């Protein structure tokens, strides 16, 4: 496949709902893997996903997914699956019928559709008994699972998931995340918007930060964190004498905060100059006064970046 056609491209895309701004001047290129869309309520995450899947059309600019346009529905939706956040279904169907009916519209044989429906039920861990019950009697978590089953049943190359973890219990959440991660590893595009950032963060290859309809930052989480240079970075250092390390570090200008770890075997240090920080840390280690066991960035995750850039806690997305 042509590399250009392996990406999702937004070129200067704007969407207005009357006078209300959806997203504005978004230019974005997403390569395969797991991408997390992060932003507060009304920031434009769902609009981006709806633009990606043709449920709404851009007021300006162009969107292409793997070089395809949603106007070519036949080819486009064989490659794209969208698990929207609308918690509603056609009336009177069982979960199995719902997925089977969707697959039948792909033009495949009934036998193939039946086989794929069963496979998708297994992928989302929905029991056979539950699959043959009416959706109207499902719990929220089961409805979420059946929507996910419908979105992945035809083996799309692009999977768009709007708040896919809503309503799932911790076990189902972990299973879903493992599925998303596996799909990402297989070379699929998995685009996820979620407000449970801690979980999604662990499997995301890249993050797209959006607020007020504007794209704030995008890229690998660590790269994005590096871009936020005006914000001090927090580092956790595991060592035998955290109080001594804190006092030595605090003596220099760039170190702005020190906090002992709850277990007493480490210290969180916040610095405005990470390069100078690591240089000094090396010197202390060489001196041998403090035995350093581990060093790790403590705010190099989507939640922290979210706080820095958007000014919210990342939970109420």
């Amino acid at each position: 496949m042509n590399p250009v056609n392996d990406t999702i491209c937004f070129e200067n895309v704007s969407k207005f709902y009357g006078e209300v701004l959806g997203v504005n001047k978004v230019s974005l290129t997403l390569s395969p893997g797991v991408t997390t869309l992060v932003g507060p309520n009304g920031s434009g995450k769902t609009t981006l996903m709806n633009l990606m899947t043709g449920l709404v059309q851009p007021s300006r600019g162009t969107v292409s997914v793997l070089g395809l346009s949603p106007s070519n529905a036949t080819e486009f939706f064989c490659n794209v699956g969208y698990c929207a956040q609308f918690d509603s279904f056609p009336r009177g169907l069982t979960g199995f019928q719902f997925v089977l009916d969707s697959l039948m519209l792909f033009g495949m044989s009934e036998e193939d559709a039946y086989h794929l429906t069963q496979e998708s039920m297994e992928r989302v861990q929905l029991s056979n008994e539950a699959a043959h019950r009416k959706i109207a009697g499902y719990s929220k978590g089961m409805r979420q699972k059946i929507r996910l089953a419908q979105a992945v049943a035809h083996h799309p190359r692009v999977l768009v998931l709007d708040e896919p973890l809503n309503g799932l219990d911790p076990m189902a959440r972990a299973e879903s995340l493992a599925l998303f991660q596996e799909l990402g590893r297989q070379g699929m595009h998995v685009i996820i918007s979620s407000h449970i950032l801690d979980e999604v963060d662990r499997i995301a290859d890249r993050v797209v930060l959006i607020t007020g309809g504007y794209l704030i930052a995008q890229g690998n989480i660590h790269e994005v964190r590096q871009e936020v240079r005006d914000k001090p970075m927090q580092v956790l250092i595991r060592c035998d004498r955290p109080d001594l390390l804190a006092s030595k570090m605090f003596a220099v200008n760039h170190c702005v905060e020190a906090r002992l770890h709850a277990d007493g075997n480490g210290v969180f240090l916040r610095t405005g100059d990470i390069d100078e920080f690591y240089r000094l840390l090396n010197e202390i280690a060489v001196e041998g006064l403090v035995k350093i066991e581990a060093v790790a960035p403590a705010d190099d995750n989507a939640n922290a970046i979210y706080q820095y850039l958007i000014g919210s806690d990342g939970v109420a997305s």
Partner: protein
Amino acid sequence: MMQQSVGSAIGTLRQQPWSLWWIQARRLSRIEIRRNLFTKRAWWIYFLAFIPAVIIFIHLLFDPHSGQNMGDDTQVLAAIVQVYYVRLGIFFGCLGIFSRLIRGEMIERSLHYYLLSPVRREVILLSKFFAGAVTSVVLFGAAVIADFVLMYVGYGAEGRDYMLHGPGFGQLEAYLLIAVLACLGYGSLFLLLSLMFRNPMPGAMLLLGWEAINPVMPSLLQKFSVASYLRHLMPVSVPAEGVFALLTVETEPVSAWVAVLGLLGLIVLVLTYTCYRMRRLEIRYTTD
């Protein structure tokens, strides 16, 4: 030059996946017919369709039939078709069936499943229209047949002879053609209205008014009315007085085939524009 562009257009048409669209249309229609016909919410449409049959049946049970009344009953049946079915029963039945196809799914927030399927929006729309047409034709066609049979069965051998060997059978064919065309005509209009307006009811009321006053309109405007075409297909003329004359009056005499083709042309025109609207449709349930 002209030949080249026509040739290229034909080539493009040939390249389209017609067989896939055909399979998708069949399957989508099947799903939709199942939803339309076998749902509790359709009870009132069954009621609209079969209430005349129930009344005729009661009449059959309690009122003895004699051969002299058959002419009157033929007039009554013609009035039921022209005044009740065309003006009310099929009109409101189709409003219920066809406006639910798109707008109903938007209200229930389930339309996006179709729009996210690998089916062209035109195929979705036309399949839904076909499913609505099948539903309404089955209901109202069956109702017209029931009315017809119940109307004449009380006359015994004379009635059977009228139905099977006399003019009755031809009249039934004409009534069924009227019912089919009325379902298609009103169906296409209500499908369009449901795409244009959040609440298609005010538009439907305007249409009802338009259909009522259409006979007094200039002949050009009469071409934009379903009922005006159907009037020309009535096998039995219905004498009416006062305001009811407006519902049955035949204005410009038009041959049956012109009426049928004219109405089919109107339906194609409306469906073409509806396809255009469908292609531009956006899913914004919060504002819908």
